[in-house]
């Protein structure tokens, strides 16, 4: 595929809760280019999860336009959306979401089931990917026989098995200890180096700091989108971002605040 993997233009998402409109996203524009490495940060309720669901094609915007893999999701039927998720996106979740009674290999092969690929080929490709994430020796283990880090690697292998152009990782290190989390991030980065765009959704600034681009969200809006420069810039931004997230009260609606770093 050529061109950016995901293009969001003035995207909004409003939930209808018992007749009351609750805006979760209020006009967000964002492009995930091929090979991107981006972190979306923000406090809980900032809209970052909603944004991730939209970027992953799990949900549709109520306003604006959203192109995934070059296709406008507003024009797609639910089965076409499902196909888009299968082909363009790979999801990695905080709680892994592995099928409990299923081996690592069959968990990884699951997306291929919905692509109509035969069992033999599925198993071969799943084994290949488990090898690639360093779990070649764990192929026939079930999730309860593996550590959290291993489970997340299985989940990453599953996200990769269809050859997606974007990996969407929602707090991928949230349930892992620091060392394990770091190795999972290193795995994601090595995949990124091979050309897969990686979008991390996190509230952990250390995690966010590793990304090349950082999007800060608050109250359903992007309050800063800074390309992160060299290693020096990373640490500075990380410090500022941390203050923004933890110390930020509910800001004025519609006010796009200045760089969070300036507040602290």
């Amino acid at each position, binding site marked *: 595929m050529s061109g950016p993997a995901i293009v969001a233009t003035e995207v909004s998402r409003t939930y209808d809760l018992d007749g009351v409109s609750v805006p979760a996203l209020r006009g967000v524009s964002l492009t995930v280019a091929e090979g991107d490495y981006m972190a979306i940060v923000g406090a809980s309720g900032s809209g970052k999860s909603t944004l991730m*669901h939209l970027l*992953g094609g*799990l*949900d549709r915007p109520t306003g604006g336009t959203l192109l995934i893999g070059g296709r406008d999701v507003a024009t797609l039927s*639910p*089965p076409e959306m*499902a*196909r888009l*998720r*299968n*082909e363009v996106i790979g*999801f990695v*979740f905080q709680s892994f*979401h592995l*099928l409990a*009674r299923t081996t690592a290999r069959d968990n990884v092969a*699951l*997306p291929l*089931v*919905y*692509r*109509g690929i*035969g*069992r033999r080929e599925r198993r071969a490709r799943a084994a290949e990917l488990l090898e690639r994430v360093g779990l070649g020796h764990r192929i026939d283990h079930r999730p309860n026989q593996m550590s959290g880090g291993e489970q997340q690697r299985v989940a990453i292998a*599953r996200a990769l098995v*269809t050859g997606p152009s974007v990996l969407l990782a929602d707090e991928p290190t949230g349930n892992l200890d620091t060392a394990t989390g770091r190795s999972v991030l290193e795995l994601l980065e090595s995949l990124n180096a091979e050309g897969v765009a990686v979008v991390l959704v996190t509230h952990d600034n250390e995690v966010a700091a590793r990304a090349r681009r950082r999007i800060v969200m608050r109250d359903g809006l992007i309050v800063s989108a800074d390309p992160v420069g060299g290693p020096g810039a990373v640490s500075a931004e990380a410090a500022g971002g941390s203050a923004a997230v933890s110390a930020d009260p509910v800001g004025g609606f519609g006010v796009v605040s200045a760089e969070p770093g300036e507040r602290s």
Partner: protein
Amino acid sequence: MRLAEAWRVALDALRANRLRSVLTMLGVVIGVAAVVALVAIGTGTKQQIEQQVEGLGSNLLIVVPGRLEAGSAPSVSTMSLDDADAVSRIVGDRSRVAVTIASGENVRAGNREAFASMQGVLETTPSVFVRRLDRGAYLTRSDVNTARRVAVLGAGVATSLFGDRDPIGRQITIGGVRFRVIGTFERLGQSLGVDRDNEVHVPVTAAQRLLGTDRIDGLAIRAPDRERIDALGADIVATLGERHPDTDFSAVTQEQILGVLGDILGVLTGVLAAIAGISLLVGGVGVSNIMLVSVRERTKEIGLRKAVGARPRDIGLQFLLEAVLLTTIGGILGMALGIATALLADRFTPVPAAVTWWSLALAFGVSAAVGIVFGVVPAQRAGRLDPVVALRTE
């Protein structure tokens, strides 16, 4: 998703909750088994009765007073042996005409007593009906002409009066009058709810004397050929009508009796099947219930499957197949149980049972249909789940 894969996933899900699956299936198993077994019993009963009616003899024409119509009052017979003679002339062969006058009587031998159905008959009875002797001889024409007090005992009566002893030549009393036993019948068993081993045949003339009457209850004719049976019946009814202008007569053939019995038993079998069908329906509701629970339990799994590319119909198919698998496995087990029950009943109880292909096909088809019907709602609900909401469920 390929169908084979969907089957595998469905089977896997059932295996994961083995006890629950088995209990859910049990409802279907019992329903299908009930349908198969009850229909088998209905069919078996029908076949047995048909055999017995046919076993009476072929080309039978039974003449009774009164009209064979619903709602008509039963008539008291005004026929006598003279009418039997008149009918014999129409038929042209006395040996093809049988008469009967029946009465329930106490029969004694020594200090033993039995209540039996005394039948006053002509010596022609064995040539009109199929009736075989076990011992001795049947009544003769001279027995009838002279009203000789001789009797042929049904197997049941013979056993209760004489046990294992040979009754031939022994004295019995019927309604206080002495008779001599000259023969016994082969054992026949029940027919149309009547114990035919409880009969005692005596000359019709002796029976009339005992009962103080000269009438007979009815006539039976074995027609010389099947084609003429209806015409013969009409001739006989017309002749009897001339002789008894105040009375209606009816002539019925075995086919007509079978037709009426078949209708009644068909309705009976239908009612049994319907009752069993209700239990199958209840089993189906159980399947639906469990599938709804299953969808709720696996909401997160549904969300994950959707996230990695499952279409709504993939998810729906998975749950629908799970329901169909529950009911079809239940259906197969139920058929086995139903067949076993029917065979055991047929073998070890007096209840006859005949397993028919159509009842098996019906039960299996219905159980699969129950799975589809009761699986559709849970499956649709699963297919329509919003993946975002489903993934968030804990």
